[in-house]
């Protein structure tokens, strides 16, 4: 290998270079030639030849100079040639590297122009599943109450009448039983009757039997009422029961908790209203209404043009309930509520048929990733 103008395969003596002052012009010429070569290396293959020509380990120009010029040079020349070579080498290396970078950038640009990705084409999408909307709603409500220091507990779906009714101050033949038509299990006679709980409230009783106050629990779960299915009724639906009992819980704390829940779930601008009502296991009892999150209270179809939406029933625990669990009704007070999870989800997401939750049509499930 050699350069076009100056032979590096010959020794300096053969080139007629005998004095140190001749080294400088020789290297200057070499450098000009290198720069011309660099300029000519414009694509990858050309660059590789260029790199090998100058930096090749055995036959590259620099290697040849070391081998043929430097090594056999007499001592008086060696110093000048060595110094000139040391100056040339970093220049060569830097320019070779710079050309590579420039060529690659250019190649990429060219490629980009040629093969630009069509971003309207889909990527590779790995199929991903989803949580059921009822589960998502449970989790949302749970998170709200976990932030308030509540403990999540659960209880059986198949209950005795005692826990579902009696211990909640609903004796047999109480008119309130009419509002909760109940499924009973078919069991041989003489055995304690069993029913499908009509609300998650029995777990209140289990929880108070199992622990001393203070109590602060929520109970998510399935409940059953013997209603014929239609767009707003399902004989299985979901509730989150809440119970807080302590020596310092009053109606004001009840109100604060309910307002916190409603604003957290439906949004900060939604207002809460408590309307006196009646449940055998709470007193005072209240229906919790929220200002309509759809129309903001001015009236629309969702709120039947009243501006308000009935959310759930709640109230201060009736002292009679404490009697069933040996709590001191004179010292303790508390509140309880039972949220309809399905109803919460229907209101929040504009779902007009409760049956959609349980048909599990994937076209429905997909809408709630």
């Amino acid at each position, binding site marked *: 290998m050699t350069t076009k103008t100056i032979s590096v395969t010959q020794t300096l003596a053969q080139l007629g270079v005998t004095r140190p002052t001749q080294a400088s012009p020789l290297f200057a010429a070499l450098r000009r030639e290198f720069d011309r070569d660099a300029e000519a290396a414009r694509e990858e293959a050309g660059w590789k030849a260029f790199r090998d020509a100058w930096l090749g380990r055995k036959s590259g120009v620099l290697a040849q100079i070391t081998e043929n010029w430097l090594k056999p040079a007499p001592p008086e020349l060696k110093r000048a040639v060595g110094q000139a070579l040391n100056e040339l080498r970093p220049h060569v290396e830097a320019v070779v590297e710079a050309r590579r970078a420039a060529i690659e950038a250019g190649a990429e640009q060219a490629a980009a122009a040629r093969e630009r990705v069509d971003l309207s084409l889909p990527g590779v999408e790995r199929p991903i599943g989803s949580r059921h909307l009822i589960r998502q709603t449970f989790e949302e409500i749970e998170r709200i109450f976990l932030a308030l220091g509540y403990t999540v507990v659960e209880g059986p779906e198949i209950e005795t009448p005692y826990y579902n009714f009696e211990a909640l101050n609903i004796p047999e033949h109480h008119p309130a039983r009419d509002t909760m038509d109940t499924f009973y299990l078919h069991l041989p006679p003489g055995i304690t009757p069993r029913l499908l709980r009509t609300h998650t409230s029995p777990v209140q009783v289990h929880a108070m039997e199992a622990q001393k106050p203070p109590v602060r629990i929520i109970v998510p779960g399935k409940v059953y009422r013997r209603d014929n299915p239609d767009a707003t009724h399902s004989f299985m639906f979901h509730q989150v029961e809440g119970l807080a009992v302590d020596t310092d819980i009053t*109606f004001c704390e009840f109100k604060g908790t309910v307002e916190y829940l409603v604003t957290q779930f439906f949004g900060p601008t939604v207002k809460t209203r408590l309307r006196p*009502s009646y449940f055998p296991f709470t007193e005072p009892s209240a229906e919790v209404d929220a200002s309509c999150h759809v129309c903001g209270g001015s009236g629309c179809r969702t709120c039947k043009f009243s501006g308000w939406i009935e959310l759930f029933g709640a109230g201060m625990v009736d002292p009679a309930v404490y009697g069933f669990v040996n709590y001191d009704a004179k010292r303790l007070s508390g509140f309880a509520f039972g949220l309809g999870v399905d109803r919460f989800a229907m209101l929040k997401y504009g779902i007009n048929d409760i049956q959609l939750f349980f048909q599990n049509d994937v076209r429905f499930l997909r809408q709630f990733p």
Partner: protein
Amino acid sequence: MKLLYNWIQEFVDVAAPAEEVRARLSLAGIAIDALEDSPAGPLLDADLTTNRPDCLGHYGVAREVAALYRLRLKSVEMALKEAAQKGDEVTRVEIECPELCGRYTARVIRGVKVAPSPDWLRQRLEALGQTPINNVVDATNYVLFELGHPLHAFDLNQLAKGRIVVRRARPGEKMKTLDGFERALTPEMCLIADAARAVAVAGVMGGAESEIAFESRNVLLESAWFDPISIRRTSKALGLRTEASTRFERGADPAMAELASRRCAALIQQLAGGEILAGVVDVYPGRPQPRKIEFTRKELLRVMGGDVPDKEIEGILSALGFAPRRVDATPGSRDSLMAAWECRQPSWRADATREIDLVEEVARHYGFDKFPARLPTVKQAAARLPYAEAEDRMRERLIGLGYREIVTIPHVDPERDTLFRAEDITPARLANPLAEDASMLRTSGAVTMAAALEWNLNRGQRNLRLFEIGQTYELNGAQPVETRVLTLGVTGLAREKSIHEEARAQTSADLKGDLDQIGQLAGGLLWEPGGPEWLHPARAARFHLEHPAAPADRAALGCAGQLGRRVAERFKLRQDVFLAELRLDPLYAGDRAARTAMRYAPLSRFPAVERDFSLILADGTRLAQVVEAIHTLGIAEVSSIEAVDLFRGGQIPAGKFSLLVRVTFLSPDATLTEAQLTGFTACIVAALEQNLGAVLRAT
């Protein structure tokens, strides 16, 4: 119940528009669902709670209005123009069952002229949804809606000996009620009889034979009080709900009985003429003892957390009839913390017997909105369900694996449930299902999963991966058992054709891989062939936890495979369906144990080396045997053994198959040398040849 606003206004001088009264009543617990117009005036539709029978009449609602507006409730006391002859000369009343009938009053009106009612009365009754009958019957209904107390008018001439006997029905006794139905009665039911026979089902409906007809001349007017539970039972047993039974079963006002009778007698006289015999025959064995209830500010503050001024407390309780009287040591001290009032339970408020009931009365009339809202102080750390984290991890994994969560109703068709049920399981049946095909609680998650797949396939959704976290139900003896299960259902394509890849159908291997991913959370699964009958016999498997957390968890965790043809046909599933079901409690326990045992293993600084072995094996040889043969060699440097390819046919002779096994070698201490690897390889080849008759293919 429907209420005419102008009727309410007869008892309280309220001038506010009906719309405003509606709103205020609703916010005081008398929910008015609607306000409409009627020919008789604005009509309020009240949805009353069952504890307030006193509001099942205009007068009772007027009392609430009076309390809300602090107006005076007008008295309904009145005197009658009576004839000289006394009522008890022509009739007698006997109560044989005072436990069922606490009061019975009878008045006699003679010489009435039964005719259609005048327009004003017909209009009011029609506005309330009633059909006017004649002036006497309409008068009883009018007073029922006015004062909330049910009355009944008998044709006195049809009562044997003009007598009233209140008694239990005799076994087998029958009676025709005025709706024309023959009713079979039982001794639990309270009857009104005359000297000879039953003439009314007490508090529910009168009899056909003694009803007022246009030719009736003499009227015996009943106004009574019956035991709520008895009326409720009777009404339920007969399937007969009337305006009267609704009021009696919620608790009518015994004190009102006589006044209502007086009011009604006067109205009958006004409408139909005749003379009212003097006095009332009044048998009153169940006269309630007036109850005193104490109400204190201390309790009000303890329950409500906010105060109400004395003036409001006294105004509200007085207006509602509780007659409050300060009884604490310093009654002159206004709004004292020690203030206490002695109150009297009004006869019309059977629901109000305790201090808490008065707290509620004061609070609802004062206004729930006047109490401030504040959050309780937090005293305990929040806690989720003990298995919540384990369930989260599993659910996240399933979603990552492409499964969509479903929620199903556990009520199933017994025939369908049987398809998935092992013989030794006793299902829980419902005694009163809504329909036969929803009369059993599912014993498996598979039965409702199959239904969810069916629903989707019938709607053109063919590629499905679904999971459900739910419960199964069964009886252990008579003891119900609820078991948490995970159910997976998979059908159609695992990957749909796209510009990037080819379509691929799901197989039972997808299900196995997914289950192994779930099982890894609990330390891994062990598989064995076989499964329940509802699975395809060649593609059915059971699995166990590799490291059960408790001895009880050693039983099979669950099963998986392709749904068998017999069951698939019952569900009309025309494409391959794969199902898996497993018990969650052992999995969660395993997850907890695995999390607890989780520790860091140092990473080797030295490179791992892979060697592939292309083997030809006899059909029936299992990967596990290959793995076992290699492991038996005890080469510590073997870090993993994987099957990377498997095929039959082509150049592979019949009865054989080709398996490509990749073994990874790794030493924690040094880079493996070529000589070591050659040694390992030779050992492995020799072992596979010797133990499994494997032939090494040239690669």
